[in-house]
């Protein structure tokens, strides 16, 4: 008997007898001898529960997490408060342990939650159709490309450089398979270059991809930018941050055909990047091209209301090579967490949260831009994240602030935007207080000053370089 199993020696004997073999080895004889491993796996012996826990805790202790540091890093995933009821509910066995609701009669809980989730996401984005969730943000962007090819028969994507770099890269990766071309349009003072975009879109364009707020935090004028797509019959695909949709005009009202995004800010942990979920909403006419599961309302033989996986004919189980997407296991539990978070926020709370983010962000942006050696990287309107330019090496400033103040000051834009080696992206959530913002301003001032001193003059000042 190994961990989590029940077969005692007596059980084994009875079972082997019923099967009519003498040993389990006999059952493995169908594996040709040369292909049998013939040795134990070269892995450590199993450990007891307290030992495993100690081992994992020791690993975890070597990460600087958002409890041990004050986290101003965003770049697509945000340190939002996850309401306690989200954990309490999603950890219930009944939600945690079943699989995809193939048997709707005994899966009404999960199916109804999907239906509610779809309703909520549809409300958020202003588009009538939502699926029940995809893997995460960037691969959802890539899936939108697949849909657009199917819908338009074209194979050319025009993508704003304001779209998350991971999304752009994922779209490019997938596009090799799609045999599609990806054309990028640059930014001007933080916003998608409208003229360049209009130039880039043509009659061969399957879709135009925008993000708002974009990666630099700037709120795009999606409606205006989208005109080029409309004109040429391309789909308008807009990636959005679900925490801003209480405030910003929903993509559905801006002419978007598809609105999608990374769902992490809604009820999901940071988790070093996953699992979270992607949401995916579209106009009515795309319903049979949607990727992923969709729950639908129906009734049972007694007329009782119920929910099922609807439109399964789009999916790979039935359509196989003609499926609208290959996605199968997705992120149901994460989408449930989002729905609970949204219900907890509620109509008013959701709007208020958006307002809180916008106001604290405005305060932080002004406060930080006023720091000596710090200036705005762009002047476009922002909602919850903004970009600065530092007059000192960004990585060294970040190291110093982390080591001395226990603050993760932001995301160094140079990682993905060579043109912004001096750029720092700062994100705000409702967990970032005024006091923390003020301390960041102070820390940034001190660190930039120290590094500039270092840089232009004396290199002996003890600017920290190690990490805590």
């Amino acid at each position, binding site marked *: 008997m190994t961990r989590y199993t029940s077969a005692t020696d007596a059980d084994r004997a009875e*079972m082997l007898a019923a099967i009519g073999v003498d040993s389990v080895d006999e059952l493995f004889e169908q594996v040709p001898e040369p292909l049998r491993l013939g040795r134990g796996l070269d892995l450590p012996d199993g450990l007891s529960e307290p030992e495993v826990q100690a081992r994992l805790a020791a*690993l975890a*202790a070597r990460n600087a997490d958002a409890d041990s540091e004050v986290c101003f890093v965003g770049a697509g995933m945000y340190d939002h408060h996850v309401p306690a009821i989200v954990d309490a509910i999603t950890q219930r066995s009944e939600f945690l342990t079943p699989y995809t609701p193939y*048997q709707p009669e005994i899966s009404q809980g999960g199916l109804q*939650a999907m239906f509610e989730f779809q*309703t909520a996401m549809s409300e958020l984005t202003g588009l009538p159709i939502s699926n029940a969730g995809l893997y995460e943000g960037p691969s959802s962007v890539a899936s939108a490309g697949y849909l657009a090819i199917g819908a338009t028969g074209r194979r050319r994507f025009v993508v704003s450089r304001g779209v998350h770099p991971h999304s752009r890269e994922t779209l490019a990766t997938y596009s090799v398979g799609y045999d599609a071309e990806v054309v990028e349009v640059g930014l001007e003072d933080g916003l998608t270059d409208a003229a360049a975009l209009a130039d880039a879109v043509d009659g061969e364009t399957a879709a135009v991809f925008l993000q708002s707020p974009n990666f630099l935090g700037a709120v795009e004028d999606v409606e205006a930018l989208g005109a080029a797509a409309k004109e040429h019959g391309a789909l308008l695909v807009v990636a959005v941050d679900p925490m801003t949709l209480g405030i910003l005009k929903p993509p559905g009202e801006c002419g978007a055909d598809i609105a999608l995004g990374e769902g992490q800010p809604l009820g999901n942990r940071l988790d070093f990047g996953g699992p979270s979920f992607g949401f995916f909403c579209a106009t009515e006419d795309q319903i049979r091209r949607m990727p992923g599961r969709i729950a639908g309302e129906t009734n049972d033989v007694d007329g*009782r209301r119920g929910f099922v996986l609807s439109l399964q004919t789009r999916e790979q189980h039935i359509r196989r090579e003609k499926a609208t997407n290959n996605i199968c296991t997705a992120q149901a539990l994460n989408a449930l967490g989002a729905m609970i978070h949204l*219900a907890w926020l509620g109509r008013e709370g959701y709007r208020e949260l958006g307002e809180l983010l*916008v106001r604290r962000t405005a305060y932080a942006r002004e406060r930080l831009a006023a720091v000596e050696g710090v200036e705005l990287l762009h002047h476009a309107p922002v909602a919850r994240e903004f970009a600065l330019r530092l007059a000192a090496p960004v990585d060294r400033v970040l190291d110093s602030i982390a080591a001395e103040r226990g603050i993760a000051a932001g995301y160094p834009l140079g990682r993905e935007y060579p043109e912004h080696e001096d750029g720092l992206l700062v994100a705000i959530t409702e967990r970032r207080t005024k006091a923390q913002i003020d301390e960041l301003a102070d820390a940034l001032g001190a660190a930039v000053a120290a590094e500039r001193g270092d840089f232009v003059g004396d290199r002996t000042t003890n600017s920290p370089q190690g990490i805590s």
Partner: protein
Amino acid sequence: MQRESARTIFEKSKPGRRAAVLPGAEVPEPPIEELIPANLLRSEPPRLPEIAEPEIVRHYNRLSRRNFDLDSGFYPLGSCTMKHNPRLNERVAALPGHARLHPAQDPRRAQGALELMWLLQASLSEICGLPHVSLQPSAGSHGELAGLLLTRAYHADRGETRTKVLAPDTSHGTNPASVTMAGYEVVKVATNEDGGVEMDDLRAKIDEDPDQVACLMLTNPNTLGLFDENIAEIATLIHGAGGTLYYDGANLNAVMGHSRPGDMGFDIVHVNLHKSFSQPHGGGGPGAGPIAVSDRIEPFLPRPQVLRRESDNGGGPSFDLDIDRPKSIGRLRGFQGNFGVFVRSYAYILSLGGDGLAEASETAVLNANYLKARLAEGRAGERLPIAFDRHCMHEFVLSGKPMKRELGIATLDLAKRLLDFGFHPPTVYFPLLVEEALMIEPTETETKESLDSFADAVQEILAEAEAEPEKAQRAPYTTPVRRLDEVKATRKPVVRQTLS
């Protein structure tokens, strides 16, 4: 389970109610229009439900009781490996050092996370018998797509363009779907009378145009639960044609520590962490679909890859994320993958250890063969014959064809009637090749008693159907809802609530 009528949370909403209280602004509060141009703003907030916290908890707790789950009872859903989900794994995944770690954290301050990924990669590499691993894919099908794009990159790097991917007709639907997404054409390969690849057909399909063969995708043991004994020869044929051999690892639970895909000749393997490695299924995810590959495929792996550096000064190694991979196919998603899933699966591997994994597979195979034996008895043996009569590995497929013909009850009816007996039914109507298929995978974590009571239930339903076939035809009776009109749901889809 509950029989009350369904009401959505939107229907429980009442204007003015709320759960959340937000922190005060603390900063100046100008009108939002002063901060963002009015034309970019929303006029009306989305109509989210308005409801206080106690009723939210009640709502979702009630919904939960309308779900059957793995902790409710036996869940022999074939191909899905519904094994026990240790709560230890949930606990360690929730440690702030894991759960609250920002994905863009500087790698120097995320050493524990990177080391954990590295350790998991090393473990999967040993289990699969392939030297390199990428943890990035988010699920099995994502791994498949990765594998096909890797194949494409591999061939492109050699200056080749190939167009066809072979897959047996028993393959899972994600395989052909992934093939199309990756820009290939699917070529079906027939199944022989032992349930394996029909070698003549395979040879024919290859010989048609060997230069066009990019890949063969295989599940082994296959979706019939049978190990394809010709795998070595298959590998020779595919490699001979210049193609890659892809292993759909959904069935890895059968062979952990017994046989390794790499040793069978596979070039690329995906592993469903939510199957063999105990990540809870979450009602349809999250999961993860890491891929293990051979040396020749390695240069093309997605980026970033975890990098281990030995220390110069005798200290411990350090870890980094390598994005400088010029031949890489690129990213398949954001950040580093489903890290929370990695934590759980690594904890699982640590708990079982090498021998424990091997024993888990052994017991999975023992349980499946025992249940198969129990269902070969009596009425089930007659009405629900095994599709391919051999010892199975971790699962097996029965055919309900005689049952349907002789008793008038279809596999679906049997499945629905099982609900009344408190069981989750097996996977039904898959693989397509077997008429009225029932695909049964008990997993190693079930007791003999559970297997026995399931077998008894099947026998009882068959007996009942001899006297009264309507009983099964109209089942279920005891579930929160009875048989649902799925046709209507697809014809006139209602996929969101209408709000006033």
